[in-house]
């Protein structure tokens, strides 16, 4: 960049002194001398005096202001008078009060207006008046210098000539270094002597619109004032009123023109002001050029030609245009340099972040609809990737079994990890084989992939016809199956039965008014934007396509085993050849005092969530208590926390998730919850629920009382066995079944939570679907050996990975491996027996538990990596 660009607006301190100080002092003294001579002429030979003063000296000033205002500011007699006290050290050097600074421009503009306008009245013809004016001004300038510091007593403030200097000299063609201020004392705002090129622009662009407005007002009125002054009739003839009416009329006219131009023409304040000022300059010389030339000519004893005015005015107009161009060019630089030197920037050490794991190379998985992408990372599921990309995808079990998160693979199916059996079964159930994958268990392995989060049912292939298959229903004569319950196991049973027989009539009786939905995710209905439809696990037309009759919002009231029919609450009866009980379980509500108060809830079904939402809003509840520190209780507490309820978990055991976790794991989990603001009370239960008309406080068995407007019981479930019991089936804690899921009645099967199979864990997705498959097969006379699925219990909460699996017992053999160093944020422990993982606990940050999960789900043989695990190399689990 050239030096000019770097410093286009030098302050006087940065300007060179082209001429020595003595020259300027000589010039000033000479000017005073001229002035005294002129004053003497005015007093003694008024005609010559007035002509020299008003026709020659004063009219030459505007041109000087436009070309090199600094010369005038160096030699002005008033400036000299003002600066004398400072130069000789007898100024009071007071700071001009801010009030006066604000007032100064008014004063100077008003003085300018009246002094100029009074020329026609007094100063053009009365010597005494003009002398008073001249010496009065000098005296006031001197007084200003005596009292106030710098040039704030006159030159930059009250001087009536200051506004017009700034207006004509807004972009001086030549600058002259201010010779009066040896050091700058910062006596005034936007000082014209400090930075002559920037002063007027700074005035006009000042953020104080009031301040900037004065300047605009002055330049906008100036052309009108010039026209009016020279076209006015003699006020001594007409009287003062018409005279001032004439003046103000013209001023208002050009003010109005200026404002209209500002409205209709898109130029900057500065450009508009500059044009107005230069117009005034040209107008001024239009009226004065003749007078100047003829006066000078007369003094020289010559006559001036009548046309002389035109070349002079043309020259002045050229000067005006030159100044305009100069100013408008400078304005660009001015605005550039006025802007703060560089927008603030915040840097992040990219290398460190990238090394930490944020990498931009490699292939991408792209969502077709949103265009968003994430890295194709073999170590991470598509679901994790989708979530990391800020996309929302419903999810359920995170094991590929529930069917909550199928995504269509538009391109790149071959680049994904191959599906396991669970996932294949789910895809088959959903009729999505070959086109979709379950996001939660599918890893993007190699190469780019394009996905659709929303699966359009119309684009899907029809489910493959089971033509080559024998219709087992026809073969066995089983043509009517009734299923009670449309949860996981009930719907899995319907699906399995339909696969075995296309002819069999299948009726599903459902107590709730909703199609099969992702019950694990009901907590999300409490917060977030999920609607119940988003939780439906099967497309609405699935039922029709599979010819399954749904009886929604219908209670099965009795089972007539003799007649083989189910009586419905509607009075209808459904005959059956085989009956499947899949009524599930209900949340256990502690038999505490007050458990029937409004505000007591369970959290299992969609209706529960709706009730909680309604109660919370109706009563403005702020605090909640969740009874139960198992998976369901913690998930419920997380959901309540997210709607800003101050939530406390009350847990009977001494540690959270005590069935699945060890103490260390539970401690990390507890700490995490507490950090999020969820309080945890362990070793206590609910003694009583207090409140007048609704829940107000929870009394605990440890004597504590917790204020709370909502109480949610997640303290376990009990199987819904009433119907089975009334029908005379053998019922224990659940409906007792054999290994084929058959109850004490050969025609009746029970699956899922309602079934009681010795040693089986309740409430797990995989268990319900596996049992449904066994029951469906057994129904048609096919025995499948039921094998409990290898299922982890996993806490479905954002921000933490918590997994529990199997048993941590090592008494009957097995080797325990866990992190040697205790950490506040990570706990891994597995028990290996005969090369198999028999038990596992994992608690850590999100995503870090995936290797353990995968190894457990694969039921992988870990013999080969035991040594590495012993050394703490947990990543070895990813290789089995």
């Amino acid at each position, binding site marked *: 960049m050239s030096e000019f660009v770097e410093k286009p607006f030098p302050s006087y301190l940065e300007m060179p002194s082209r001429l020595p100080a003595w020259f300027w002092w000589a010039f000033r003294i000479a000017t005073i001398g001229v002035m005294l001579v002129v004053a003497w002429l005015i007093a003694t030979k008024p005609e010559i005096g007035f002509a020299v003063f008003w026709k020659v000296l004063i009219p030459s000033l505007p041109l000087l202001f436009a070309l090199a205002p600094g010369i005038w500011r160096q030699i002005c007699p008033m400036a000299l008078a003002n600066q004398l006290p400072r130069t000789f050290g007898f100024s009071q050097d007071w700071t001009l009060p801010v009030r006066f600074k604000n007032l100064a421009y008014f004063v100077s503009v008003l003085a300018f207006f009246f002094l100029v306008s009074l020329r026609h009245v007094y100063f053009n013809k009365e010597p005494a008046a003009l002398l008073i004016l001249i010496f009065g001004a000098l005296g006031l300038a001197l007084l200003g210098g005596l009292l106030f510091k710098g040039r704030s007593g006159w030159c930059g403030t009250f001087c009536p000539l200051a506004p017009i200097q700034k207006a004509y000299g807004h972009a001086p063609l030549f600058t002259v270094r201010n010779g009066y201020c040896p050091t700058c004392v910062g006596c005034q705002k936007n000082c014209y002597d400090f930075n002559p090129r920037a002063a007027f622009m700074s005035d006009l662009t000042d953020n104080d619109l009031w301040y900037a407005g004065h300047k605009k007002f002055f330049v906008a009125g100036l052309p009108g004032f010039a026209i009016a002054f020279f076209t006015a009739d003699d006020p001594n003839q007409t009287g003062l009123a018409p005279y001032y009416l004439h003046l103000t009329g013209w001023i208002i006219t050009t003010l109005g023109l200026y404002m209209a131009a500002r409205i209709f023409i898109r130029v900057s304040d500065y450009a508009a002001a500059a044009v107005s000022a230069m117009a005034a300059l040209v107008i001024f010389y239009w009226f004065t050029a003749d007078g100047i030339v003829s006066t000078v000519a007369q003094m020289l004893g010559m006559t001036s030609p009548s046309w002389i005015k035109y070349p002079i005015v043309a020259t002045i107009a050229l000067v005006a245009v030159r100044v305009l161009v100069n100013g408008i060019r400078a304005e660009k630089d001015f605005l550039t340099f006025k802007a703060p030197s560089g927008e603030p920037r915040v840097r992040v050490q990219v290398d460190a972040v990238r090394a930490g794991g944020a990498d931009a190379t490699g292939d991408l998985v792209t969502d077709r609809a949103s265009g968003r992408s994430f890295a194709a990372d073999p170590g991470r599921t598509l679901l994790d990737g989708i979530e990391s990309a*800020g996309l929302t995808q419903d999810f359920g079990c995170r094991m590929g079994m529930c069917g909550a998160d199928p995504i269509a693979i538009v391109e790149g199916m071959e680049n994904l990890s191959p599906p396991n059996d669970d996932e294949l079964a789910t895809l088959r159930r959903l009729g999505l084989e070959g086109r979709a994958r379950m996001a939660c268990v599918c890893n993007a392995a190699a190469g780019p992939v394009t996905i659709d989060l929303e699966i359009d049912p119309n684009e899907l292939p029809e489910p493959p016809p089971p033509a080559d298959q024998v219709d087992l229903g026809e073969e066995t004569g089983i043509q009517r199956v009734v299923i009670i319950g449309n949860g996981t196991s009930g719907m899995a049973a319907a699906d399995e039965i339909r696969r075995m027989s296309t002819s069999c009539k299948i009726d599903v009786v459902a107590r709730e008014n909703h199609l099969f939905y992702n019950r694990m995710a009901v907590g999300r209905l409490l917060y977030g934007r999920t609607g119940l439809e988003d939780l439906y696990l099967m497309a609405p037309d699935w039922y029709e396509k599979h010819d399954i009759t749904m009886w929604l919002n219908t209670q099965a009231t009795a089972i007539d085993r003799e007649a083989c029919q189910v009586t419905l609450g509607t009075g209808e009866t459904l005959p059956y050849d085989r009956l499947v009980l899949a009524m599930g379980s209900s949340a256990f509500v502690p038999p505490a005092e007050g458990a029937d108060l409004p505000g007591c809830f369970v959290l299992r079904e969609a209706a529960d969530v709706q009730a909680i939402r309604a109660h919370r809003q109706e009563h403005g509840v702020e605090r909640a208590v969740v009874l139960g520190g198992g998976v369901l209780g913690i998930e419920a507490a997380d959901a309540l926390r997210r709607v800003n309820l101050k939530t406390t978990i009350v847990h009977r055991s001494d540690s959270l998730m005590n069935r699945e976790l060890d103490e260390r794991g539970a401690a990390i989990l507890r700490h995490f919850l507490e950090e999020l603001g969820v309080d945890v009370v362990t070793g206590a239960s609910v003694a009583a629920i207090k409140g007048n008309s609704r829940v107000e406080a929870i009394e605990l068995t440890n004597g504590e009382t917790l204020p709370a407007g909502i109480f949610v019981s997640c303290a376990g479930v009990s199987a819904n066995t009433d119907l089975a019991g009334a029908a005379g089936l053998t019922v224990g804690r659940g409906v007792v079944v054999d290994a084929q899921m058959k109850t004490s009645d050969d025609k009746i099967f029970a699956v899922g939570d309602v079934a009681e199979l010795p040693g089986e864990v309740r409430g797990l997705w995989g268990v319900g679907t596996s049992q449904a498959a066994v029951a469906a097969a057994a129904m048609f006379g096919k025995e499948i050996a039921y094998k409990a699925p290898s299922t982890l219990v996993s806490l479905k909460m954002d921000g933490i990975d918590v997994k529990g699996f199997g048993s941590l017992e090592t008494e009957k053999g097995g080797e325990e491996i866990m992190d040697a160093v205790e950490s506040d944020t990570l706990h891994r422990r597995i028990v290996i027996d005969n090369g198999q993982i028999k038990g596992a606990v994992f608690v850590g*940050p999100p995503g870090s538990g995936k290797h353990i999960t995968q190894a457990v789900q694969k039921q992988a043989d870990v013999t080969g990596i035991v040594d590495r695990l012993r050394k703490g190399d947990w990543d070895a689990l990813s290789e089995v």
Partner: protein
Amino acid sequence: MAFFDYPGSGVPNPVETEITFLADLSEAEWARILKVVETRQFRAGENLIQSGDQDDAFYLLTSGEVDVLIGSEEDERIITTIAEGSVFGEIAFFDQEARTATIRARSRGSAVRITRENFETLAAWEPGIARRMLVELGRILAMRLRWTLSIAFN
């Protein structure tokens, strides 16, 4: 730049205009942050932030360049371009109000995306890092506010 920087007249010091976000974090500490936050990969033309959206994440642009656009869809204007290594979006992270500009990728790249929920999780796992992050975000806001004030009242 001030045109009237009168000597000794108390013109304020130039505003600090460059901050390195969490300059003292080690790679290991970044790795711990990255466990709980989101990493976005994007292609040229993809919108990271859509004007009007309610999205309370701030971003660390770890690679690539993004444009900041304002105006309606028919009348979009690029007001600035953000270079690799920048931090942006922190205002909505704090006030959770709708986005006022669209951020669109100029090139392929990646960004770390930290939502309020991510931050809460980070605070639960790594309170020390989270506290430092919060102070840094405050420092960024303060710097940008100072800059804004310096424009408004210059």
